[in-house]
């Protein structure tokens, strides 16, 4: 990112240091008698106004956030090939739809007769997600993928309990995203790592050995985090089901096979879908997303409540259901995110969804093809929507994946994912998505090739990168060594 902000931006607490009274946001006039707080509230609980937050005029605040925004890279800036995160374009019509007053100004406890349109949005999304996954039931409650994983694993626990079984372990490939083992733990299971085979896919012999009657099931990412489709997916599911286990699928990578394949046919019992990845709802600088979970027939009775049910032409909320795992969150869902996802799916239709997967996979293969001579590929099975290179060639010159990524910032691109899969040392997980024009994908490849040359010829350029960004390389070690997690007034100077 070549642009630097025109100015550095102070912390808000450093504005208006004299704390002068200035015109600030006005509230509606108080047309009832003011009350003395101490006379109606416990006196020892009444606080003074926060002194650190200054009075600022509207433009001050707008400029503050405008300047801050100038220091961010975003999808709208350029290619953001952050593997596993599916940083596709966020259609603007989604934003318009999610801001309609009939959706935003709705209280979740209004009577059902007043919220039929909202309930219908949820019901429609439920239907299309069942169609897209080929599964029997859906919960829209989870607020993110990890939350969906937990919901799915709790349903699996409940289904086993209903059979009178207590199985303690869950098998999770060593290539899995960190949320998989974490979610298994929070669902009360012991996460047991299963080593990937030499080609990065599930090792059938290991699975055969480990899939005992202590095992509740397996958590599989499809395609896996290398972007590779498990070729024996059906056998895996049969083996697990045959021994009384259930199959959880991490659908974070659904973009790879939208409209092309059905998790239901693969034997999935539960599968979360990151609406903020596959279905274009914005990533929001960290969230909110939504992590709907589709389930097989056997798990339908255990879906979380509350949920929307249809009665003829009317929709209602079902609050209690005896076999349900119960609610996963407050109210029903990240509703305004669901509105965006439904808008997107309706905009694309069936053809558009399949085309999405096609171009996403095509672009990933283009990147793979262009970069193979310059970057090492630990696992060379065919790629779907993403490709995972690593820094093995560059390490010979003392250059790591972090250096490569920081240099990429100078070229105006967001770096690939580096934190996983753990089975690839120095990973560079690249997912271009279907959204950009081919020229943008090619320009990214050119930058990666240029960086590979720089790594050989002038590695210090990479060690010192980035050079062109709003701040230079940030000292993350120092941040962790001496945590400063908020501003303190004593720093005023």
């Amino acid at each position, binding site marked *: 990112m070549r642009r630097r902000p025109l100015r550095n931006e102070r*912390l808000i*607490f450093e504005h208006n240091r004299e704390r002068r009274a200035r015109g600030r946001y006005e*509230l509606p006039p*108080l*047309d*009832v008698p003011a*009350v003395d707080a101490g006379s109606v509230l416990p006196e020892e609980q*009444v*606080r*003074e106004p926060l002194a650190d*937050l200054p009075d*600022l005029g509207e433009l001050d605040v707008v400029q503050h956030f405008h*300047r*801050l925004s100038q220091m961010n*890279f*975003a999808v*709208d800036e350029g290619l953001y090939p952050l593997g596993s995160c599916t940083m596709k374009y966020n259609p603007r019509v989604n934003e318009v*739809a999610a801001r*309609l007053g009939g959706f935003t*100004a*709705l209280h979740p406890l209004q*009577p059902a007769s007043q919220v*039929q349109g909202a309930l219908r949005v949820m019901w429609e999304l439920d239907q299309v997600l069942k169609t*897209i996954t080929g599964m029997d039931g859906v919960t829209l409650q989870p607020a993110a993928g*990890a939350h969906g994983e937990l919901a799915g694993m*709790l349903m699996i626990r409940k289904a086993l309990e209903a059979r009178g079984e207590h199985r303690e372990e869950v098998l999770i490939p060593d290539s899995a995203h960190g*949320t998989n083992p*974490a979610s298994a*733990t*929070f669902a009360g299971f012991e*996460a047991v790592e299963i080593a990937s085979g030499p080609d990065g896919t599930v090792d059938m012999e290991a699975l055969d050995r480990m899939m005992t009657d202590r095992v509740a099931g397996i958590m599989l990412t499809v395609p896996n985090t290398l972007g*590779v489709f498990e070729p024996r997916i*059906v056998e895996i599911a049969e083996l697990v089901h045959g021994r009384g286990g259930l199959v959880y699928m991490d659908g974070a990578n659904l973009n790879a096979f939208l409209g092309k*394949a*059905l998790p239901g046919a693969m034997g999935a019992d539960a599968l979360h879908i990151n609406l903020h990845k596959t279905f274009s709802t914005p*990533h929001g*600088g*960290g*969230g*909110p997303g939504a992590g709907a979970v589709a389930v097989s027939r056997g798990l339908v009775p255990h879906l979380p409540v509350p949920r929307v049910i249809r009665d003829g032409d009317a929709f209602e909320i079902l609050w209690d259901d005896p076999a349900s795992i119960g609610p996963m969150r*407050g*109210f*029903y869902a990240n*509703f305004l995110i669901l509105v965006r996802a439904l808008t997107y799916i309706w905009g*694309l239709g069936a053809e*558009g969804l*399949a*085309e999405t997967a096609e171009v996403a996979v095509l*672009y990933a*293969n283009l990147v793979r*093809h262009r970069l193979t001579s310059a970057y090492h590929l630990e696992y060379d099975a*065919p790629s779907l929507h993403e490709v995972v290179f690593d820094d093995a060639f560059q390490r010979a010159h003392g250059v790591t994946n972090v250096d490569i990524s920081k240099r990429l*910032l100078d070229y105006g691109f967001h770096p690939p994912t580096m934190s996983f899969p753990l089975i690839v040392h120095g990973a560079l997980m690249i997912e271009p998505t*279907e959204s950009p024009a081919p020229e943008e994908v090619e320009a990214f490849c050119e930058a990666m090739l240029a960086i590979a040359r720089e790594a050989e010829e002038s590695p210090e350029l990479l060690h010192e990168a980035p050079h062109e960004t709003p701040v230079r390389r*940030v*000292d993350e070690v*120092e*941040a962790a060594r001496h945590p400063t*997690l*908020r501003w303190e007034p004593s720093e005023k100077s």
Partner: protein
Amino acid sequence: MHRWIGGGPSDRRAILSELGKDSIDQLFETIPAGVRAGDLDLPAPMDETTLLTRLEGLAAENVSLDVMPSFLGAGVYRHVEPAVVDAVLQRAEFFTSYTPYQPEISQGTLQAIFEYQTIISRLAGLDVANASLYDGATAVVEAALMAHRVLKGTRNRVVVSEAVHPMYRRVLATYTSALGIEVVTVPAGEDGRSDAQRLADAAGDEACCIVVQSPNFLGAVEDLSAVAGAAHGRGALAVHVVAEAASLGILKGGGAHGFDIVCGEAQAFGIPAGFGGPHLGFFATRTKLVRQMPGRLVGQTVDAEGQRAFCLTLATREQHIRRAKATSNICSNHGLMLLAAVVWLELLGGKGLAELARANLARAEDLKRQIRALGGGWKLAYPDTPTFNEFLVLGPANGTKLQQALLDRGVLGGVPSRLWGGSWPDGLLVAVTERTTKDDVAALIDAMEKIS
């Protein structure tokens, strides 16, 4: 060729020929035939105009809060929505970016989070706040599970006041039932407030925490010092839940009364009701407990030239490093809602927030006064209990019937207090905010007068 997809047919052919492939289908050959999808049965693709007309139609089937006086609260409150908040949220630099893993190109998001952490920790009366959780209910769960970890898993009981939002308690039950953690619920007293002694008795020596909400589900402001004392007296952590964050403009956060964790729902800070989400879970604790804290944290540091900079920190607590032993499984959080909150708070300023909270208090007291004067079976359930902007009203019928009767007269009069059960009286929870107008109140009082 769809407008949201980058390459056209000739681009695709060119790429395929570079790859030495004849068709796109060849790229999907690794997917076994048996799991392939046929043509999906979905509506035909829509152009933008048609699409928006369809969504507008659905939105129009709802009755927006703009067209009817509303006194609904119970965890979702309608406060002022300054235009600036959504204008900032619509900046693509914020909403089309992701978790700020690359600090050099994410200082905007990181600094906004740092400012949010500063403000929230101050409001909570504690040292450190995280960079958001999903919502109030999951924040309460995270607090209980953190207390369980802090006490090394040796204390398997969570004691929770029944006056904590019933929906939050239900979510807590969903999570704890899988982990073998016992939840003991203690009913509130005759005045709608939790009894510290009964909480302490329920805790015994086995509780990892005592959880109260204040203002609680019934609107009552709890005796926080007594509860913190009760928890600590039993060797448990004290958790203060806040479901109406605007109350923090006038009431000290639990940290000031000795609480170890203050957490809950911050939807009040500039986030639309939105039919229940996305909202904003907040979470604050003490420095000495930070390593057991869930969620992301931003810290201040320097860049290679010594300039102040911010980055994500203490990540060894998190799932991407600690995996099965992480302090939470959360990954994507509610970052953009956090941004809404920090813009809203900075726009109001410290004094503005206090003024807003005082306006809520004043309007609530005014409405309470009018209800006291009503007669006809209408009365306050807890006339002498301190409240902020919500309180329990009893009338000539049960809560559900009252709600319907008021609705028939054009007013969303409140939330039935027994919607989720509870051992308290069956009435209506009535909430006001600074947006409640004189006309709204007149409409409510008028409708109440006609129902008796």
